[in-house]
């Protein structure tokens, strides 16, 4: 029993990071129909920049804020320089553009920060908490809380604020949104900033546990992507659930089946979900219009 609990704890921890990546995917996907494969790089940047700023002697909270702000700016730059000019390009092109961006960011990070693996101190110490015979790191609670807070904040933003509704309206029908006076270009910029910031937050929260290096992004991107698809593309609720589910499945596979195949589990589940309900758990059904 305590063993199961232990697996659940570790599943929830990584799941929270995947959920944050998936939420980032969802925001951009909703605003632009683009699946941003560089989402994982935002996570990587969040961890790496925090590490760097902290290593320069800045206090951790300030370092974290800087990391989030810089990553958000990079997200905006990516939108302006790479996504906006490619408006209307086919799906294959967009996949290649965002993967190109991902490789570019990785290369740049490697050049600036090197290839080493880095970490920084956990926010509330390394003393594990004992719950029901299992242990959980305080940092895990930070990560899980981070995912939940971001989700609630996003929910409030999308349902309670004018700006949030503008984003949803743009997602729904870009032309109509423009006609009623929504600045859709600003909405796109905002989405990338928000998405990058959320990714960076995830990376910053997770780095003390998972460690960070220039090449960790792609793994996060694929799992987060898997989570978003499992939940149903475009649904924030789906992203949160899907991310946590992928984390849990991974941890349970590692615990009970084979730690080598833990990454495989996520993709097997994805394949199954796609076969049996191609719209994911919470996705909307679409009908081809003729």
């Amino acid at each position, binding site marked *: 029993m305590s063993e199961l609990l232990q697996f659940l704890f570790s599943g929830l921890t990584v799941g929270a990071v995947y959920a944050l990546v998936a939420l980032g995917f969802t925001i951009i996907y909703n605003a632009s129909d683009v699946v941003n494969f560089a989402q994982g790089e935002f996570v990587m940047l969040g961890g790496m920049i925090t590490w760097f700023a902290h290593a320069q002697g800045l206090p951790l909270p300030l370092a974290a804020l800087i990391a989030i702000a810089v990553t958000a700016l990079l997200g905006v730059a990516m939108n302006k320089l790479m996504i906006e000019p490619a408006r209307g390009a086919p799906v294959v092109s967009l996949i*290649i553009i965002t993967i190109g961006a991902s490789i570019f960011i990785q290369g740049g990070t490697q050049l600036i920060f090197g290839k080493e693996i880095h970490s920084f101190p956990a926010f509330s110490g390394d003393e594990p908490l004992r719950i029901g015979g299992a242990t959980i790191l305080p940092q895990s609670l930070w990560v899980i809380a981070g995912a939940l807070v971001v989700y609630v904040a996003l929910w409030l933003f999308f349902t309670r604020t004018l700006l949030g509704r503008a984003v949803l309206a743009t997602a729904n029908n870009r032309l109509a949104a423009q006609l009623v006076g929504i600045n859709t270009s600003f909405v796109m910029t905002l989405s990338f900033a928000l998405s990058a910031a959320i990714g960076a937050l995830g990376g910053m929260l997770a780095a003390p546990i998972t460690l960070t290096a220039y090449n960790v992004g792609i793994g996060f991107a694929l799992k987060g992507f898997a989570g978003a698809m499992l939940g149903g593309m475009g649904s924030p609720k789906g992203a949160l659930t899907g991310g946590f589910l992928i984390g849990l499945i991974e941890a349970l596979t590692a615990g009970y089946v084979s730690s080598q195949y833990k990454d495989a589990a996520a993709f097997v589940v994805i394949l199954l979900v796609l076969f049996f309900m*191609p719209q994911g758990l919470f996705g909307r059904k679409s009908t081809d219009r003729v």
Partner: protein
Amino acid sequence: MRLTPKAATLLVLALLVALTPFFFPSGYYYRVGALLFVNGIAVTGIVILTGYAGQISLGHAGFSGIGAYACALAPTHLGLHPALAIVLGAALSAVLAYLVGRPILRLKGYYLGVATLGFGILVSMVLNNERDLTNGPDGIDVPDLGLRALLETWGLDLTNGQFWYFFCGLSLILGAWLALNLYDSPTGRALRALHGSEVAARTVGVDVARLKLQAFVISAVYASVAGSLLALQNKFITPDVAGFMHSIEMVTMAVLGGVGSVLGAILGAGILTLLPQVLTVFAEYEQMVLGLVMVLVMIFLREGLLPSIFKAIRGKGE
């Protein structure tokens, strides 16, 4: 006389294979050339899948992995001749593509992308983890094809580099010929039709599911043969051949040069094969440059390099 696009493509390829060695400063370039041709074969498969039929795969390196490891394992474990191992790998890839493709190809766009991606990752994971069989991430030796020795007894004495250069070159021409045949054939027309509009293709009687599956299986065989040739010429292979990055590389090469045309895609394969060779001087910047090239080409030359060049020439002519 006016050449058909098919004849022109084959002529260009034949000249390329036959004449470029005269400009090689050293024997090393035969290796680079052979690598280019191997990538060209894989990419030609992508042309059939993505360029003709309009379907995305982010996991085709999985089939290259199967082709490569078939050549590494079948000779030692099954006592098969390496040449037959290529065929076995291709057959295995075809069967697997058929089984996986049936459910997967119902999906569209990003969903198809992630499903194929998942498939590729599973293959690469098996190759990495089944150490008893594959020797894991360290890689495994691959036996000699033996064809060069055979040619030598016939009086054709080639260096190892030269042999693989011409062998892969001829294989690429063969692969391109098949793909070009397909383009104008009834099957090719139906594939391009379902690319244009699935609904309309269905209403003229195209069994869309079946045709997508055919394209998927054919392109898997291309990827598998490319993997086999890569393994055999290096006499060594690691699971990276099946990795995510290799899948992405294949698609990028094809789209970079122009996924709608065989020659364009091979041009793309050429550029991405040569780029790292040129950039070895700036090894540190290699990744950044690669990423940047991918982005810039997709933004400024949407249909890929070759179609854009043709368009520019035609535009000036008119």
